């Protein structure tokens, strides 16, 4: 079972929990990435985030997420994979991404979650724009100066 969604409203883990249910699957793991108020600015200071906005190349993002979910399922013997990414404005304390996976054994879900998140953050065409406390905004492009 693979379920991939880009959503424009708040992500609640409770709404997705049942996606992974299966009586032969003993281990379920979830990761939620939540908008934080503070980010280290790299020079000892702290930036205060007011809100985040996410944009995607939607069809390509869905396609890349589908591919990486399939690869994760194969490499880590998963039964199910759920990846939900929110787009648009995401307020502080709300989830921007939710990843769930299930497997007969916990070692596989523990290996799969970070693998999926690393790949998602490297390859899936989704971008975030930060709005800071002073109303200034900035697109986040990690490898650029």
């Amino acid at each position, binding site marked *: 079972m693979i379920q991939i969604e880009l959503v424009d409203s708040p992500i609640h883990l409770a709404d997705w929990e049942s996606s992974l249910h299966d009586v032969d699957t003993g281990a379920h793991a979830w990761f939620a*990435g939540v908008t934080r108020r503070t980010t280290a600015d790299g020079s000892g200071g702290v930036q205060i985030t007011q809100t985040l906005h*996410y*944009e*995607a*190349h939607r*069809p*390509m*993002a869905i*396609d*890349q997420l589908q591919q990486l979910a399939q690869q994760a399922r194969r490499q880590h013997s998963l039964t199910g994979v759920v990846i939900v*990414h929110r787009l648009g404005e995401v307020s502080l304390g709300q989830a*921007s*991404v939710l990843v769930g996976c299930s497997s007969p054994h916990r070692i596989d879900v523990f290996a799969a979650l970070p693998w999926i*998140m690393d790949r*998602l*953050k*490297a*390859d*899936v*065409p*989704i*971008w*975030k*724009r930060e709005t800071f406390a002073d109303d200034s905004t900035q*697109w*986040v*492009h*990690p*490898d*650029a*100066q």
Partner: protein
Amino acid sequence: MQLRILLFAGIRELADADSVTIDVDDNANAADVLSAIERVLPQAAPLIHVSRLAIDGQYVAADHPVSPTADEFALIPPVSGG
């Protein structure tokens, strides 16, 4: 040949446009496309330099030949989802 390239995030903002149209040779590869985009959007050069080209939703290598029959070209700057 003329190609329409979709733009996103910081590059879209710097270009103030969702897409840009460029001219490249018939035997151009992905690297030539990136160079052509850089020429029409010099204000976004540093970001374009670290971006990847995607053809029909798949990333392509720098030496990948560009076919005008592809449905979609997208310039993908470093991503920050998650």
